[in-house]
């Protein structure tokens, strides 16, 4: 953890700017660009600050980076990006991607993403990540040249197919269940929270109506006039206070959303493991059947029914030369298969080891973060009451 990038480099996403440009289909579009600033953390002290490097990136480039990382490091629970579109919106919140509040929250989310990647023991060493932060031009091309897209596409197809694993690793199965539960519970929570926020907003705002009536009423009263005026004023203040309160709550919601998406990433790792396991089993099966075939050919016995067996019975035996050839081919294949299996097994074991390490890491982080989030929620509630 000591040589994590985050220790060596200060990373911020400091600004957001609306841009217009031409997209791939040469049509005009508006998008938001985010300024990434990096500065080396020197241990020199004495007020000597390293110069700040900066470059602009847009959301789609962040997406590209994340896809690359997910494919290249399948055993890592890759930190998620802030949501693509505004979700769990309640009536006052805008679902517009260009809305300044949304852009601001996204800016914070993107910074968070970069910091999390930079703090990850494996991911922070990645060259593409480093150049994402430092290389202005040509980064997209460089990433595409790694050819990760092909891997991604084939992986995607495989992952989406349904398959059954014969001997699933129980830990991963449990983890998958957990990620499913987490996803479902957090999205439920966010939905209800949005509704609660909406209602609370209503309560406060209706109180605002008092303000005007009180001040109008105070006009006809002599003794009560002052009291009514000040009551009206307080009502206005009260009604206005909800805006800030709910804005702060949105940050809390964003923290929860991060873990909602993290759950997805976790699930993805589990699925990849499943896929690996499945491929392993398939390979093993294949190997076993080849070995059997070989044995049969060598000994001339047919243990299992096979079309070949039948045809050879019907149309006569093969010549010994033919048989030898076949056996040789099979033996080669078997050797290949065994090697493959070995490497797959190794791969599998490595995957499991590193995945598990990462998962443990993730769990700790999650626990810590969520606890902090809950605490800050409590703090928010408290400050709301104090108002």
């Amino acid at each position: 953890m000591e040589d994590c990038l985050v220790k060596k480099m200060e990373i911020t996403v400091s600004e957001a700017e609306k841009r217009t440009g031409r997209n791939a289909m040469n049509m005009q579009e508006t998008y938001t660009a985010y300024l990434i600033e990096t500065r080396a953390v020197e241990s020199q002290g004495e007020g000597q600050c390293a110069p700040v490097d900066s470059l602009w990136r847009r959301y789609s480039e962040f997406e590209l980076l994340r896809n690359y990382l997910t494919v290249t490091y399948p055993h890592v629970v890759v930190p998620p990006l802030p949501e693509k579109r505004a979700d769990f919106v309640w009536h006052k919140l805008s679902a517009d991607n260009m809305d300044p509040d949304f852009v601001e929250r996204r800016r914070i989310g993107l910074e968070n993403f970069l910091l999390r990647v930079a703090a990850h023991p494996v991911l922070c060493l990645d060259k593409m990540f480093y150049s994402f932060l430092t290389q202005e031009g040509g980064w997209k091309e460089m990433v595409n040249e790694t050819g990760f897209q092909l891997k991604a596409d084939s992986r995607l197809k495989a992952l989406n197919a349904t398959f059954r694993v014969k001997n699933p690793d129980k830990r991963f199965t449990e983890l998958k269940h957990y990620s499913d539960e987490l996803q479902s519970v957090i999205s439920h929570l966010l939905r209800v929270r949005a509704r609660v926020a909406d209602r609370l907003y209503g309560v406060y705002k209706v109180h605002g109506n008092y303000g005007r009536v009180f001040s109008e009423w105070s006009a006809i009263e002599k003794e009560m006039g002052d009291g009514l005026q000040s009551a009206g004023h307080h009502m206005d203040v009260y009604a206005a206070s909800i805006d800030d309160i709910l804005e702060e709550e949105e940050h809390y919601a964003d923290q929860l959303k991060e873990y909602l998406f993290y759950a997805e990433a976790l699930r993805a790792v589990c699925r990849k493991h499943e896929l690996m396991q499945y491929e392993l089993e398939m390979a093993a099966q294949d190997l076993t059947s080849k070995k059997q075939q070989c044995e049969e050919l060598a000994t001339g016995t047919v243990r299992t029914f096979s079309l070949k067996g039948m045809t050879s019975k019907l149309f006569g035996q093969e010549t010994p030369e033919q048989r030898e050839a076949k056996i040789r081919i099979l033996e080669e294949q078997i050797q290949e298969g065994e090697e493959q299996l070995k490497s797959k097994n190794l791969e599998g074991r490595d995957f499991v080891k590193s995945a598990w390490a990462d998962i443990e890491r993730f769990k700790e982080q999650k626990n810590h973060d969520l606890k902090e989030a809950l605490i800050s929620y409590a703090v928010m509630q408290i400050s709301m009451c104090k108002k």
Partner: protein
Amino acid sequence: PLLAAAADVLALDDEEDDLEVFSKDTSLAEVNSLSPSMPISPSSMINQYKFEDEPELRDLFITVDDPESHITAIETFITYRVVTKTSRGEFDSSEYEVRRRYQDFLWLKSKLEEAHPTLIIPPLPEKFIMKGMVERFNDEFIETRRKALHKFLNRIADHPTLTFNEDFKIFLTAQAWELSSHKKQGPGLLSRMGQTVRAVASSVRGGVKNRPEMFTEMNNYMETFSQKIIVLDKIAHRIYKEEREYFNEMKEYGPIHTLWSASEEDIADSLKGVASCIEKCCRATEKRMAGLSEHLLPILHEYVLYSEILMGVLKRRDQIQSEFESKVDVLANKKDLFSEEIGKLEDKVECANNALKVDWDRWKQNMKCDMRSMFTNMAENNLCYYEECLATWESFLASQRVDPHVEEDSEDRP
């Protein structure tokens, strides 16, 4: 001398005898001319007959409770138990318990209006409620009505004039059959008809000509007040509704955290803690709503009704004056300005004006008191709510911070 003595005596604290003196006058003199013939300063009256919160000064205690449903062949109706406790001499007993139905209250109100056209008779709860009512005998409706009827009778009891009204006494003390027979007596119907005829005649005449400044001011005030109080009533109901919706959503919010805690280990306790905090806040919200419905809504509603009543009283006063004015016109042509009739009407106008003036001041005082205590209660209600929520979350926070888990300085922190 009698009047002077009575005035002096009334300026001191009340004792049974003083009140008896006062009430004896009532039974002797004609009801309409009572108030103006007693030069009692309004302020001393107000000091005497302060509002509900000074029970030592009262000698008449009324409660309305125990609604009961009665089913006959023709109809179904509700009766309420009216219990009266008194130390007044003119009551034969010191305790009474009778059963009255809404109709009886209506009767009482109309009798009081008849007897004192320019006094402010407290409002009765409405006959029906327009919106959202399916069944007439919904529990909430009955309870709201019961509370309003209780208020109605107590306001009458506190009123310096109305409290000694004979029909009021009968209402409180008579058995059911006694009441019905009493209701059938008296000018009742005819006088009501006369009232209506006069009202129509007055509007035909085109209303009052020389309305004293004071009453025009009152009118203007009431118009604005009426508007504002109606809006306040609406806002208050809306707030109640919004709080109810908020409460409903909150009820779902807490349990999700508990559900989540089932899948977690390390943060399970924190999650459960949050769930319980939310639950406690839910309960506090319920209390807040109850406070609203007890302290705010009924009072605002009562004053909405009051504003209607006051507009009516002002109209009636105008009527009395316009009757007088038209008589003056008629007789002026006949050059007979000093007829006895005019004298009587003039007196009537003066009485009506004075009665209204005194009662108006009293009503304003009470209104101020009521509003002040209403707002204070609401403020306390809200403070209580926020204090409770604050305490809940603070104790949660304290429990979390003590936890050793939080103390790790994780390098994973972004």
